[in-house]
């Protein structure tokens, strides 16, 4: 019963979904203001989702229909479970399990896998092109992201999110150290690719390959993909705040600070999004396996030397 409450209401579907919708509006509004436009009303993301729920679902004539419908559900479920594990370690640190950091890391890569599977199942050439790019992008950013997540593990000497949080409340935030700061910088760049925002929206590339893997989706399955993307907006920054930046604290001040930190990370993502044109996939891979991996690896080296 508690599990069901946790997954569906707080901190699961309802709460994280609402936060995701608001953050998605924040993203669109801020982008609009940066371009000197007015921007949409605050319930715009919710209206988009509600509208898509009422539209027709068109299934591909060729290709695998069960996979086509299953992929968006799998992506959404994975983000919900990841968000639940993060919140569990924030609210009740003793409830976490050894290696929950790794579990969250892999659960957060499932939405990208869902996009790949769903896109491939639609048997559309542009979708398979987008799916191929998503695979390359996934390979590119997972390496530096994992390296940068090893910094808090090394510093705290624990693979549990609860252990990392306990270390931070005793010895100050991970981002306060040199290695932590460099690792956070690398992780913020990886977050940009994980959220699928420009300059790393290579897989969807609306103006180039017509939304890539999503091209054949319509109605409720498309709504699920959009919803998954909205959910990633609070979940990914919250994960980084948990691991690098003190979590949500225990007092009201700590909670408000955590909200400000999440907003700051999302603002950084929106600013990068609005000031950078889309890269080609080879440029993105070079970027992540070159400078970002070097940044993350040097952070890890510093952490191993205790800096």
């Amino acid at each position: 019963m508690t599990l069901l409450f946790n997954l569906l209401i707080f901190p699961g579907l309802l709460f994280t979904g609402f936060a995701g919708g608001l953050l998605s509006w924040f993203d669109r509004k801020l982008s609009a203001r940066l371009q000197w436009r007015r921007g949409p009303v605050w319930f715009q993301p919710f209206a988009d989702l509600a509208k898509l729920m009422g539209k027709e679902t068109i299934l591909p004539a060729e290709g695998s229909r069960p996979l086509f419908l299953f992929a968006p559900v799998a992506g959404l479920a994975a983000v919900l479970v990841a968000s639940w594990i993060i919140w569990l370690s924030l609210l009740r640190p003793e409830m976490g399990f050894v290696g929950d950091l790794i579990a969250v890391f892999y659960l957060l890569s499932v939405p990208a896998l869902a996009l790949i599977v769903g896109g491939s199942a639609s048997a559309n050439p542009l979708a398979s092109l987008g799916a191929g790019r998503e695979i390359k992008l996934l390979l590119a950013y997972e390496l530096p992201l994992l390296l940068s997540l090893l910094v808090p593990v090394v510093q705290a000497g624990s693979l549990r999110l609860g252990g990392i949080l306990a270390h931070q409340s005793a010895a100050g935030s991970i981002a306060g150290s040199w290695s932590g700061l460099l690792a956070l910088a690398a992780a913020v760049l990886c977050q940009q690719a994980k959220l699928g925002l420009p300059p790393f929206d290579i897989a969807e590339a609306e103006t180039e390959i017509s939304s890539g893997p999503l091209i054949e989706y319509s109605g409720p399955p498309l709504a699920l993909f959009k919803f998954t993307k909205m959910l990633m907006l609070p979940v990914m920054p919250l994960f980084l705040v948990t691991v690098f930046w003190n979590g949500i604290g225990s007092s009201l001040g700590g909670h408000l600070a955590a909200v400000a930190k999440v907003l700051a990370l999302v603002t950084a993502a929106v600013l990068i999004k609005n000031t950078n044109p889309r890269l080609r996939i080879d440029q993105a891979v070079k970027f992540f396996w070159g400078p970002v991996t070097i940044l993350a690896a040097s952070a890890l080296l510093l952490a191993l030397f205790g800096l």
Partner: protein
Amino acid sequence: MKKNLKITQKALLKSPWVFHLSTGSCNNCDIEILDVLTPRFDAERFGVMLVGSPRHADVLLVTGAMTRKALPRVKEVWKKMARPCAVVAMGACSMDQGIFRGAYNTPDPVDSVIPVDVYIPGCPPKPEAMILGLVKALEVVKEKFQGEKRIDKML
């Protein structure tokens, strides 16, 4: 007898996603569409987004006089759209073929191939006219939802 709208239908009126289909236009209408999205008019205030795939779209925005080559493509794109959806013919060419009427390469007007809900006249239409056309298109969709007969479909 007006029916009450379902929440998904109300939401559609608040977030019309537009797929822009050029059927052989001179590009002036297409440039003018961008004016509606840029800071001066900013149609995103009303939830309007340009989408890349007809599967995602609620409004099919047709420009151009529909050449012989474009005709089967127009049919195909209209079939590919998820219902409910509306069709807007924009510019003099897609209304009544404009200066291309009777030309050898533009055999049929757009509304002889797909059902057009709203026409926006002009060569090219002003951004204000386009926004008015959008409002009319949403009214047409609303009336369709309410099950009323459409009386005046011309702008």
